[in-house]
């Protein structure tokens, strides 16, 4: 889309910098920015004009886990572990060989994360052993522990149902609920505090379909769609 009128172009740049240009209009505008230096200059000028509004912000120290996560991603990029992890095609391609082969491949490429950061990874597959979801977390993260969840490909939830994630402690011990998740491609879910330590020793994870609001009994009641074993990297 071309924006011929200069006044309109600048007005759009202003609303883009302000944040009120949205949705499809925002996407379209961002596409035009790529090969329109004049439009980029309008945006840059507006960003400078409005920047003093950020000077009033009092800095807030983010938790250390943010930096650890960034470090892990940038030191491995671009062909590193993080990129591989994020690559849907890789997991799809690895499906035939299963998790073990996938991990061996990862190791043989020499792209394992730095030693001191221990990462727990679960590749959750459906009954045909096709990977559907990946879950990972730092074993040593102090304070609140978060799981990073990736739903691979498009997933749909039946109406009035919920997806509940379960920790499988191993042996004949009962599954413990990790809470409800969505079908969003990427999610970050807080591990219930009482399971924050236990989850590092879990055998695996499972995801079951439950009534809206989650299992009424505290144990899986619906079919288990995906399941996977924990692997420490």
């Amino acid at each position, binding site marked *: 889309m071309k924006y011929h009128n200069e006044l309109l172009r*600048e*007005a759009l740049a*202003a*609303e883009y*910098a*302000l*944040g*009120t240009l*949205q*949705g499809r209009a*925002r996407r379209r505008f961002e596409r035009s920015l790529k090969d329109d230096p004049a439009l980029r*200059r309008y945006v*840059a000028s507006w*960003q*400078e*004009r*409005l*920047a*003093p*509004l*950020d*000077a*009033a*912000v*009092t*800095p*807030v*120290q*983010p*938790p250390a*886990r*943010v*930096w650890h*996560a*960034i*470090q892990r*991603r*940038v*030191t491995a*990029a*671009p062909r590193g572990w993080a990129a591989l992890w994020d690559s849907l095609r890789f997991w799809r391609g690895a499906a035939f060989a299963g998790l073990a082969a996938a991990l061996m491949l990862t190791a043989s490429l020499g792209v394992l994360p730095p030693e001191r950061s221990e990462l727990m990874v679960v590749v959750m597959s459906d009954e045909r052993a096709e990977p559907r979801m990946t879950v990972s977390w730092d074993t040593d993260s102090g304070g609140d522990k*978060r799981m990073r969840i990736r739903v691979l490909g498009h997933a749909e939830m039946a109406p009035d149902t919920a997806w509940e994630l379960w920790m499988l402690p191993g042996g004949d011990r009962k599954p413990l609920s990790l809470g409800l998740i969505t079908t*969003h491609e990427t999610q*970050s879910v*807080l591990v219930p505090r009482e399971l924050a330590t236990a989850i590092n020793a879990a055998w695996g994870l499972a995801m079951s379909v439950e009534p809206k609001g989650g299992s009424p009994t505290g144990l899986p009641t619906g079919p288990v769609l995906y399941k996977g074993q924990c692997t420490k990297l």
Partner: protein
Amino acid sequence: MPDDDPIAEIMARCALRDAQAFAQLYRHSAGKLYAVALRILRREDWAEEVLQESFVNIWNHVGDYSAQKSAPTTWMTAIVRNRALDWLRRPHQEYGTEDYDLLVEALASDAPDPEQTLQSERAARALAECLKRLSGNQRQSIALAYAHGLSHGELARHLQQPLGTVKTWIRRGLEKLKSCLDDH
């Protein structure tokens, strides 16, 4: 900004893939950028994700930066703001009623007061002065949209005004702001 010069140097080293410089850049800027993300998203977990994505983005694109014409802080802030706005406007990620109440509460407690909050630099003074020349409605909608990432629709709900009215306030306010700043 006067404190941007050392950052420009740090960023140049980041462009050469200097991991230590990147750590320095993070130490210097993360607090401010996290606060910007928090102000828009109002949820720590979302702000953490956005900050993480933004810094990965900064690392990947710091090489392109020299071609840009903006100050380093402005450039990095724009990345965080864009990520935060994208995050906020994901499908099905509208503010829930509860979140919206929290938001309104928060807005009430930090009602924008450019005179008090802006730093006393020249650019900031000029912006503060020019904001003062806008009508109260124009000023309020622009400040709310910028600081908290409110959409036209959310502004209209918050200010209890028709959508068209809010859009006009913003458009006219921005026009007036520009001509005032150009005169300074």
